[in-house]
């Protein structure tokens, strides 16, 4: 049991700071193993240093986010682990 491993839903707050659509219900394809699934169903590691969402099949980092919450107030976002994101069009 890994104490720091949470569901992808735990990254929803950080992702909602950047994206205006609901990321946890988007389907992501892992660039390393090809597995697809909702972002909420992947594994999230959410700490003060940064947030990493990893493929629940192969642990490949799908999403990495760093937030500088002072000074220049910057975000850094790495989505290279995702081959594509599939979103439902907003009704």
């Amino acid at each position, binding site marked *: 049991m890994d104490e720091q491993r949470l*569901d992808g839903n735990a990254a929803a707050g950080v992702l909602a700071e950047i994206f205006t659509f609901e990321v946890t219900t988007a389907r992501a394809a892992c660039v390393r193993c090809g597995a697809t699934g909702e972002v*909420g169903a992947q594994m999230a590691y959410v700490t003060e240093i940064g947030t990493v969402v990893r493929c629940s099949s192969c642990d490949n980092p799908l999403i990495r986010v760093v937030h500088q919450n002072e000074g220049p107030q910057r975000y850094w976002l790495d989505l290279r682990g995702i081959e594509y994101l599939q979103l439902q069009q907003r009704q």
Partner: protein
Amino acid sequence: MTEVAAAPRRLAWQIGEVVETSPETPRTKSLFLEVPSWRGHTAGQHVDVRLTAEDGYQAQRSYSIASAPENGRVELLVERLDDGEVSPYLTDELQTGDGIELRGPIGGWFAWDAAEGGPLLLVAGGSGIAPLTAMVRHRKAAGSDIPVRLLNSSRSYEEIIFREELERLAAGDETLEVIHTLTRSRPDGWKGYGRRIDEEMLREVAYPPEERPLAFVCGPTPLVETVATALVGLGHDPARVKTERFGPTGG
């Protein structure tokens, strides 16, 4: 001012006011908040709460919303962790009239609206009951008769969170079943389950996989992983088993 056509915007911090606090069990307390610019939520979602000290130091934690979307107030269930940094402040210091900084609702994946159907299998450990209670309350407010089974694991009878309300709801509704298991101590004459949730218990309690229930599992990580693994092992579709791990101790 209401928003037009849900124009997308990033999540922002808001200040809510504590309008009521209510002890639930020896270790848990409900906080009722009025949040002026609250956009409503779906049962299962959570908020992030941020505390700021005078010198700017901040601490932040997530709490599930226990109230139904139909209820205008936002209810958070807080379990006091003895070595916690945020929960003791929320349970011991925060008073009616205080402001609290929060953002939400967050997390559309672990959420359920009655329009999605069922049957619903809800499995909770400790304070993991909070988002599942929101679902049960929403179902009642929406007048839905979708079958629901709630399997709730608590340490003792006194520590069953929302016990009276859940009993009342179940007594008046034959499509809602609440099943308890008490893991550390049981009152005299207790006839219910008396152990940690395992595959055997789930085999007895859960809907058969052919009924394709929507399962939501919430609580401490070890419980969540045991239950999710067991449900899949019993033949449930992994895509219909949603989990919210609280971490090792719950929260």
